């Protein structure tokens, strides 16, 4: 039988506010335990939540970028359960009336294949603290620094059909929140976390199969592996005449498999009700318009523009707009060297390779866009050959300064002086009488040999075009 997978993702994104969603405590990552947990975050008696305006603005920003509806009125509710990293015994979240609803995100699958993924809702909520189990005997240690960090949970429609689509969606959303500067998207630090709802059904069937939820898959690679594993597991189960049990599973990264969570599976009854400490959140059209004005050019629009204005193909445009920083870098280089194709090739080639090798992000590059732009200018004005330019790039990468300084210091300037080249060419012809004779007898492919000799004699600095031209002239004569 042919099977179809149905996947929906719930992504929890930490918002890059300075303070918690309901308190004025700092949200910086990596502080000493409980030094950023104030009385409100600790759930002390009598203290009260007050909503962070910036978190609301960020939610609006995301909603606008997803083409979603911003609710004029949304409500914070309490989700009640007991856990030591949840100090109040309830999480403040949005339940019946979320701040953002009905959006969509377009993902690119192949060069020219894209797909729209529905966004059911996005709601604001507070993060929990952290429970530390390792290194303690008989006890669990609790750090509440993360408690109260603002989260926006983005819930997709079950529109994805493969792990590949799910990863493309996650990457697109990740890129979007960084474009919007509402999250640092740092997956190692837990700023961008994903739960996947997965089911399978016979191809052509309309009804959904029983789903499982795979919790906390926190890298693109693990999402792909976890989903593929889970799809396969469900298909095998069904083909063997079994049934999928609706349950929550964890992805075991060391074994590359999902397994049911061992927590005592009691029927969760969260007893949601409107938080009486927080009045309804009302968002005025004026605020929406104000936020709209701060929206940057979004990835899809940028991609279109790159294709249109720079003449780049779909693939290159997608790669170059993957992050706002990369796109900005590319545009600066292209402007400086006035050659978008050349700029694109270098950014995706030499630069991306070097960054990848060094494990650096574009924002950490030692070669600034201006430095690369100048280098490419030197190719354009024939100061450098492409080959020598790579050597200069490497020198810049290693901190030897800008292109002009490297060229000067290393004497890499391309030889374009006609008379000087003529002298060298004549010497080469004189030194190779046999080859000269053969060439003149019609073996024209020996031209390459002569070019090589001239390049060798000039340490690669001769302008290749000029060498060709002069050689043909001299040998022909």
């Amino acid at each position, binding site marked *: 039988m042919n099977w179809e997978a149905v996947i929906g993702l719930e992504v929890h994104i930490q918002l890059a506010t300075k303070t918690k969603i309901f308190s004025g405590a700092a949200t910086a990552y990596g502080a000493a335990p409980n030094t950023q947990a104030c009385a409100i975050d600790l759930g002390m008696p009598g203290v009260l939540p007050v909503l962070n305006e910036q978190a609301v603005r960020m939610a609006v920003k995301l909603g606008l970028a997803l083409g979603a509806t911003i609710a004029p009125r949304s409500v914070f509710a309490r989700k009640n359960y007991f856990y030591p990293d949840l100090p109040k015994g309830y999480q403040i979240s949005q339940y019946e009336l979320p701040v953002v609803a009905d959006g969509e995100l377009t993902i690119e699958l192949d060069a020219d294949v894209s797909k729209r993924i529905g966004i059911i809702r996005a709601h604001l909520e507070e993060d929990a603290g952290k429970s530390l189990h390792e290194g303690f005997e008989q006890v*669990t240690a609790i750090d509440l620094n993360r408690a109260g960090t603002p989260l926006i949970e983005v819930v997709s429609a079950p529109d994805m059909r493969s792990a590949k689509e799910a990863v493309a969606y996650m990457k697109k959303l990740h890129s979007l929140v960084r474009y919007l500067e509402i999250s640092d998207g740092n997956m190692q630090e837990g700023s961008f976390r994903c739960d996947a709802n997965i089911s399978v059904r016979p191809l052509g069937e309309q009804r959904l199969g029983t789903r499982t939820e795979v919790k906390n898959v926190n890298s693109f690679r693990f999402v792909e592996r976890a989903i593929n594993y889970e799809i396969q597991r469900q298909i095998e189960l069904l083909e063997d005449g079994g049934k999928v049990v609706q349950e929550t599973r964890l992805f075991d990264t060391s074994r590359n498999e999902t397994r049911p969570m061992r927590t005592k599976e009691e029927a969760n009854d969260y007893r949601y009700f409107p938080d009486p400490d927080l*009045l309804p959140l009302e968002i005025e059209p004026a605020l929406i318009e104000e936020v709209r004005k701060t929206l940057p050019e979004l990835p899809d629009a940028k991609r279109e523009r790159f294709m249109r204005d720079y003449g780049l193909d779909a693939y290159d445009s997608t790669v170059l707009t993957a992050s706002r920083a990369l796109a900005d870098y590319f545009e600066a280089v292209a402007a400086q060297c006035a050659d978008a194709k050349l700029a694109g090739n270098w950014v995706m080639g030499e630069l991306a390779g070097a960054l990848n090798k060094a494990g650096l992000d574009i924002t950490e590059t030692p070669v600034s866009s201006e430095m690369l732009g100048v280098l490419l200018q030197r190719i354009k004005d024939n100061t450098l050959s492409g080959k020598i330019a790579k050597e200069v790039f490497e020198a810049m990468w290693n901190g030897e300064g800008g292109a002009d300084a490297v060229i000067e210091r290393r004497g890499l300037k391309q030889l374009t002086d006609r008379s000087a080249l003529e002298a060298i060419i004549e010497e080469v012809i004189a030194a190779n009488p046999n080859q000269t004779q053969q060439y003149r007898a019609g073996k024209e492919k020996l031209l390459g040999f002569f070019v090589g000799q001239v390049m060798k004699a000039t340490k690669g600095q001769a302008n290749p075009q000029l060498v060709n031209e002069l050689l043909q002239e001299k040998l022909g004569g």
Partner: protein
Amino acid sequence: MSLGPSQVREIAHLARLTIDGNDIPAYAENLSRILDFVDQLGSAATEGTAPLAHPLEMPQRLRADAVDEEDQRELFQSIAPATQDGLYLVPKVIE
């Protein structure tokens, strides 16, 4: 609405309370009496009436995103039952 002993135990567990076996009948009786009493609400004609969650029908006031809390860990943990190296300690969580 009358609650039986198993329902009392269930509700108690949801609220993380243990009720001594001997006290269960008394709790069951009192809770049932309270629920019977509030069942009067069933007679109210509420069709078309919007729920009122809060006496103040005004919007949420927002707070500027500025740090105004300082580290008071030492003070807060001076009243904690068990801490170590700045962490709160609780009995092992079994997952």
